C-alpha cells in the first residue's frame, strides 16, 4: 500500500505505515469491561475495609500507624484491583541465556497473584518473543563471550570510579573510537546505562530559555531528561510533520510565552523506532524541517541501531541520509549488541562539551570492562571487521524475519500497528481480560510473549508486543504463527477488517497540542 506522501521526493523507498482504527464495537466492549472491573474493585475495597476479606496489601507497622499514609487510596486502586489479577504475565524469571529459546522457572500462585511460589520445575525451550535480542548477540558461547571472559579475568568485574577520575580505561577509548566509526560521526562517548544517558545529557545541552519539541510517544527517559533540564516542552502529534512544522513556525514567530524574547535554542526529540507502536520516525522530513527552521535534532536510536539499515547502522542508513545531519545521535547497547550502556555521537565540539559538563561523566561510574569488550566484539562482527560475514547475515535474516512475520499476521486478520520494516510488532488486544488470557495461553503453548496495558499504552489500546530476532529460524516463526492463530481463534482477536487508514489522512487538529512549562 503506497500512500501519497507530502515531500514525497525525499523518500528513496516506500514508507508503509498503518494504524488501523479501533472497531467501534470493540471499543465499547472494552469500556464496559473496565467498568465492570472498577465496580468489582470498589466492592472488594469495601469488603477489605470492613474486614470481611483479608487484606493482603502491605500494611503499616504498629509504631507507625499514626504516620501519614504512604499511598493515597485511589492511586493504588488500579494497582490493587486490576493489575493484581493479571500480574503473572510480567516479571517472569528465566534461568538461561535470553536467546531465541529460554528456560523459564515455573511459578504458581495460590492466593490469586498476591504471592508467588516457585515449584522448582524449569520449563525448557520456550520460544522467546519478548527479549530485545534483535541481532541474536545474547549468546553464552562464541567469539563475543570468549573475549569478554578474557577481559574479565584481566581487568576484574567493575571500575569503581567515575569517568573523570580513575575510571577511564584504555578499553573505553577504544570503544568510543569504534562507535564513532560505526555511526559515521566524528566522535562518540559511552555511558553506563541507556536510560541515564538521556536523563543526564539533555539537561547538559538545553536549559531555561530553550524550547524542546518532543513527540507524543517519547520514552520515559527522554521525558525525564526534558523535565530535568528546565526548558519549555511542547508536544507534537506522533510522527505528524504538519504538527511539528506548525509548532516550529509559532515558536520562532512568537518567541517565549510571556516575554516574547526569541528562544535560545530549539531541540527536537525523536526516536528511531517507537517501542510501543512499532513505527519508524519520518527522518527525511524531520531533517528538512530542521534545516529550514535552524533547530537541532536529537535522535534516540535505542531500538533501531543494529536493527535497521542494510548494514545495521540504524535509521539514518535505512533512509539513506547523511549522519552528519543529525546533531545528536544517541543509542543504547542493550538491545542489539547484547550488552549494557548507552552512547552519544556527534561532532567533536559536542562530545568535548559533554565530556566536561555531562552529569554522568562527573558523578556516575563508567562501563565495566567485560561489557565494553562484548560491545567491541559484537560491533566489529556487525561491521564485518572480524573477517566473517556473520554480522551481515544476521542483519539480513532479521529483515527477512520481520517481513515474513508481519505479512503472515496481517493475512491471518489481526490488527498490527506500525511500519512494515520494524522488528517490533504490536498486536492489538484491546480488552483487559484478553491481556491476561493471551499471556497465559501462549505460555501453555511454550511461547513467551510480552503483553502491555495501561499505563504504558492508552487505556483501551492494550497490546501484545513481539520482538523479532535474527536468531529466530523460520521453523520457530512458523510454530509461533500457528500457535498465535489458534489463540487468536480461541480469544476472537482477529479484529481487522482490512480497512487500513493511511497515517497522513488522520485529521490534524489545530487546537490539541499541549504546552507544559516548568
Amino acid at each position, binding site marked *: 500500500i503506497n500512500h501519497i506522501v507530502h515531500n514525497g521526493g525525499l523518500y528513496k523507498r516506500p514508507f508503509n505505515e498503518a494504524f488501523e482504527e479501533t472497531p467501534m464495537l470493540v471499543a465499547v466492549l472494552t469500556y464496559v469491561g473496565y467498568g465492570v472491573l472498577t465496580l468489582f474493585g470498589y466492592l472488594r475495597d469495601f469488603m477489605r475495609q470492613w474486614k470481611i476479606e483479608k487484606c493482603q496489601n502491605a500494611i503499616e507497622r504498629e509504631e507507625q500507624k499514626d504516620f501519614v499514609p504512604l499511598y493515597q487510596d485511589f492511586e493504588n486502586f488500579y494497582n490493587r484491583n486490576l493489575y493484581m489479577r493479571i500480574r503473572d504475565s510480567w516479571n517472569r524469571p*528465566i534461568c*538461561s541465556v535470553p536467546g531465541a529459546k529460554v528456560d523459564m522457572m515455573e511459578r504458581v500462585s495460590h492466593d490469586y497473584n498476591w504471592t508467588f511460589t516457585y515449584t522448582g520445575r524449569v520449563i525448557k525451550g520456550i520460544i522467546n518473543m519478548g527479549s530485545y535480542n534483535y541481532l541474536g548477540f545474547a549468546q553464552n558461547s562464541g567469539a563475543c*563471550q570468549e573475549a569478554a571472559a578474557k577481559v*574479565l579475568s584481566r581487568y576484574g568485574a567493575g571500575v569503581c570510579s567515575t569517568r573523570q577520575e*580513575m575510571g577511564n580505561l584504555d578499553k573505553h577509548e577504544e570503544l568510543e573510537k569504534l562507535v564513532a566509526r560505526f555511526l559515521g560521526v566524528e566522535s562518540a562517548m559511552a555511558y553506563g546505562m541507556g536510560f541515564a544517558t538521556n536523563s543526564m545529557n539533555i539537561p547538559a545541552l538545553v536549559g531555561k530559555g530553550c524550547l524542546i519539541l518532543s513527540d507524543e510517544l517519547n520514552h520515559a527517559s527522554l521525558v525525564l531528561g526534558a523535565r530535568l533540564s528546565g526548558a519549555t516542552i511542547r508536544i507534537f502529534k506522533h510522527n505528524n510533520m504538519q504538527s511539528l512544522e506548525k509548532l516550529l513556525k509559532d515558536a520562532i514567530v512568537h518567541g517565549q510565552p510571556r516575554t516574547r524574547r526569541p528562544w535560545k535554542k530549539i531541540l527536537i526529540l525523536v526516536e528511531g523506532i517507537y517501542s510501543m507502536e512499532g513505527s519508524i520516525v519520518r527522518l527525511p522530513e524531520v531533517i528538512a524541517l530542521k534545516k529550514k527552521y535552524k533547530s537541532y535534532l536529537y535522535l534516540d536510536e535505542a531500538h533501531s541501531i543494529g536493527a535497521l539499515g542494510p548494514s545495521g547502522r540504524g535509521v539514518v542508513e535505512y533512509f539513506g541520509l547523511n549522519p552528519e545531519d543529525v546533531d545528536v545521535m544517541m543509542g543504547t547497547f542493550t538491545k542489539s549488541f547484547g550488552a549494557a550502556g548507552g552512547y552519544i555521537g556527534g561532532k567533536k565540539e*559536542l562530545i568535548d562539551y559533554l565530556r*566536561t559538563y555531562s552529569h554522568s561523566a562527573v558523578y556516575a561510574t563508567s562501563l565495566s570492562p567485560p561489557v565494553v569488550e562484548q560491545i567491541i566484539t559484537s560491533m566489529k562482527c556487525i561491521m564485518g571487521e572480524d573477517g566473517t560475514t556473520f554480522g551481515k547475515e544476521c542483519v539480513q535474516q532479521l529483515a527477512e524475519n520481520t517481513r515474513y512475520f508481519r505479512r503472515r499476521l496481517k493475512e491471518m486478520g489481526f490488527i498490527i500497528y506500525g511500519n512494515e520494516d520494524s522488528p517490533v510488532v504490536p498486536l492489538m488486544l484491546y480488552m483487559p481480560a484478553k491481556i491476561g488470557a493471551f499471556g497465559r495461553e501462549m505460555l501453555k503453548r511454550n511461547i513467551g510473549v510480552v503483553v502491555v496495558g495501561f499505563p504504558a499504552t492508552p487505556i483501551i489500546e492494550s497490546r501484545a508486543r513481539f520482538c523479532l530476532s535474527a536468531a529466530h529460524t523460520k521453523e520457530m516463526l512458523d510454530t509461533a504463527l500457528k500457535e498465535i492463530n489458534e489463540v487468536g481463534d480461541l480469544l476472537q482477536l482477529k479484529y481487522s477488517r482490512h480497512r487500513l487508514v493511511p497515517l497522513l489522512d488522520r485529521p490534524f487538529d489545530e487546537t490539541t497540542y499541549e504546552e507544559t512549562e516548568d
Partner: protein
Amino acid sequence: LQEKEELIEEWQPEPLVPPVPKDHPALNYNIVSGPPTHKITVNGKECINFASFNFLGLLDNEKVKSAAQASLKKYGVGTCGPRGFYGTFDVHLELEDRLAKFMRTEEAIIYSYGFATIASAIPAYSKRGDIVFVDEAACFAIQKGLQASRSNIKLFKHNDMADLERLLKEQETEDQKNPRKARVTRRFIVVEGLYMNTGDVCPLPELIKLKYKYKVRIFLEESLSFGVLGEHGRGITEHFGINVSAIFLSS
C-alpha cells in the same frame, strides 16, 4: 505572512554547545591501562591507587572473578530486556533474597545503575506537594531525584540536628494552621550514611528520635557505608546498633 517569513529568516539560534577551552582538565583524561586495583597504571606510570572506591578490595578477588566467569558462560553478558519482560533472571532473585537476609530487612530490589537507584526511588514515593528535608551536602544523585519528584525541598545544615529540629517545628506550626492538608502531605528526611562530599557520618540515633517525635519517614542512602561501617558490614544501622526496621528505605 510576509512578516512571519522574515522573522523566520532573521532568527539565529545559539550554537548547540558553547566552545570548550582546549586545556580543560576533563578533556585530557588519564588513561588507565590494566585493572584499577590497588596498584594502578595511569598514563604509563605505576601509582598507588587512592582514588577508586574499591573499599573492600574485591575488584581483584579470585573467587569473585571465577563466579563471574561461570555466570558469563551460563547467561552471556546482557539481559536484553527490562525486569518486567523476561529480564528477571534467577540470579537476580537470589541476590535480592540474600541482600534482604543480610541487611535484615523484609525485601530488597536491585537496579543496574548506581546513580539511578536513589534518583528513581525518591520520586516513586514523594510526589508534588510532599515535603522533603534533605541535608545540604547530599550527593548529586539525591539532588536529581528530588528535582524529578517536584516536592517541596527544605535544606538543613550539614549534620546539624538543631537546624533540622527547627525546620520540623516550623512545619508543625504550619500544619496546625491547615490540618486537612497536613493529613495528606507526606514528610521525608533524606540522609546519607557516609557523605560523599564531606566524608562524615550522619548522627542516626538523633534522627530516629526526631522521626518518632515529628512523624517523618527516613530515606537512608548507604552507597558508601554499605560494606564499610558496622561490624559485619551491614552499614550505618549496625554501626550505631539500631534496628533497621526503623528506616523506611535504605539504598
